[in-house]
């Protein structure tokens, strides 16, 4: 089977664009990625489009109505916060299968405001605040407190993750915010769901990202100079865990996906130069250091304490600013993190460049759960 390459990839600067539409944002990202690849929509053989908010409204086709209706197959997909990674992976799969040589993947989202989630819908009375909380900050707080329970992880250690990611975002012009948030400011911000303060919750933003994926044959034909090899593409759902029904599990699906990705790539965690992982809340990032094998179980607190996951550290994590400061447009996130890693592998990340980056990993979680992991390699 052919290797698959990212030939073009880009994202729009994340922000709030209430005057624009979902297809409009997606079209902008698609054109940026096509330009990056030196191709146009007429060269694309298929298109996978990821979006959650308008999952029943043919977003992919509406994007083509803005940038060129060529009649190619369009598949619209939604998979919670793993939506963008799912679109990318479907594009990868179609090339692996030998169906196509040049495929477009787009992830796009316009977000509302306020809390996501909520406990128990259905008939009867509202369950939120009656049967605990189903809001996302609380659900991920409970997942983080499970780590505290096992290893004594502290509020301050969780907060340091947010300090780090906000610091990284000051070097990323495409992040929603470029603002330093000292530790006291993070810890003293409005408490949303202990231990997650407001500055430890990802930012609701609008955004879009896109990638052009090609077969090896096509990459050689078009020029490999800026191509990035997809070494592994993995998706998992959550294997059975005894507390599943009340505690959505982001750990076992990530561990399973990481093991499969390392195997597919023929690599291990020590080979990875940078990671963009799913920091939807500061508590979540802590869990994934261990889930992705960046350290042994119980060592995550030490990793953040000793700066190993900062830019310049042993294994920089979320140098883009992460979902905490770059922002989290749900359907776009899984391609935006691929853009970030590719930018480092191409040596084009400017001030935040991870030096000598050759191999990077992206990770997203769609709660419910879906985990998508990609390992990317400089050619």
């Amino acid at each position: 089977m052919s290797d698959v390459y990212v030939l073009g990839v880009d994202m729009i600067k994340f922000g709030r664009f209430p005057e624009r539409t979902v297809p409009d944002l997606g079209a902008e990202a698609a054109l940026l990625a096509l330009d990056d690849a030196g191709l146009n929509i007429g060269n694309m053989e298929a298109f996978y489009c990821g979006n959650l908010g308008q999952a029943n409204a043919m977003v992919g086709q509406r994007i083509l109505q803005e940038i060129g209706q060529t009649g190619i197959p369009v598949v619209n997909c939604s998979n919670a916060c793993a939506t963008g990674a799912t679109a990318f992976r479907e594009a990868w799969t179609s090339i692996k299968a030998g169906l196509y040589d040049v495929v477009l993947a787009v992830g796009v989202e316009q977000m509302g405001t306020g809390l996501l989630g909520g406990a128990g819908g259905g008939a009867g009375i509202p369950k939120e605040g009656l049967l605990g909380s189903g809001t996302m900050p609380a659900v991920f707080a409970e997942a983080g407190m499970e780590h505290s329970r096992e290893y004594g992880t502290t509020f301050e250690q969780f907060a340091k993750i947010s300090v780090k990611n906000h610091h990284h975002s000051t070097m990323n012009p495409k992040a929603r915010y470029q603002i330093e948030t000292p530790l006291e400011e993070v810890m003293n911000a409005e408490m949303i769901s202990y231990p997650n303060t407001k500055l430890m919750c990802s930012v609701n933003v609008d955004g879009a990202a896109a990638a052009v994926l090609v077969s090896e044959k096509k990459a050689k034909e078009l020029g490999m100079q800026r191509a990035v090899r997809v070494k592994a593409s993995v998706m998992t759902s959550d294997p059975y865990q005894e507390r599943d029904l009340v505690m959505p599990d982001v750990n076992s699906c990530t561990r399973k996906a990481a093991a499969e990705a390392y195997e597919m790539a023929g690599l291990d965690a020590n080979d990875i130069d940078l990671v963009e992982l799913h920091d939807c809340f500061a508590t979540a990032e802590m869990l994934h250091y261990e889930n992705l094998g960046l350290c042994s179980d119980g060592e995550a607190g030490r990793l953040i304490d000793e700066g190993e996951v900062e830019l310049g550290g042993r294994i920089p994590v979320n140098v883009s600013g992460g979902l905490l400061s770059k922002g989290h447009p749900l359907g776009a996130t899984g391609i935006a993190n691929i853009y970030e890693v590719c930018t480092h592998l191409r040596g084009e990340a400017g001030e935040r460049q991870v030096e000598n980056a050759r191999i990077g990993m992206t990770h997203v979680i769609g709660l419910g759960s879906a985990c998508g992991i990609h390992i990317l390699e400089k050619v």
Partner: protein
Amino acid sequence: MSLPVVDYLKLPEGGDPYLEGYKCKDCDSIFLGERNVCSKCFARGTLSAIKLSNTGKLYSYSIVFRSFPGIEVPYISAIVDLDGGGTVKGNLIDCDPDPEKIDFDMPVEVVFDDALGRKDKDGNSYISYFFRPIS
């Protein structure tokens, strides 16, 4: 007459309320709510209703300070492992919403009471369950 807030809360006539689980006789997994297939071992027709314990231990929690409009905060969203099996999520009451006052594995009892005065559109009231520390 009050209705149960979820279908796994049972209000037997003339008896005490309880939480109901479904247990797989092949692998002993316990689920909340009725189901036909065991999602752990994939067995079919092996699940039957059991009465869950009214005591357990706090597994994890969050203290919720921001919720949706109209919902009183703060409250403790608690995940409790029941003695004998089954994990349930609910509000931990009669406990200060302060991490210093909340211990992992603290013993709790399941208590049943009116669902914070919440009524459905037809005016029905509901019985819910809560966790309370056992001192």
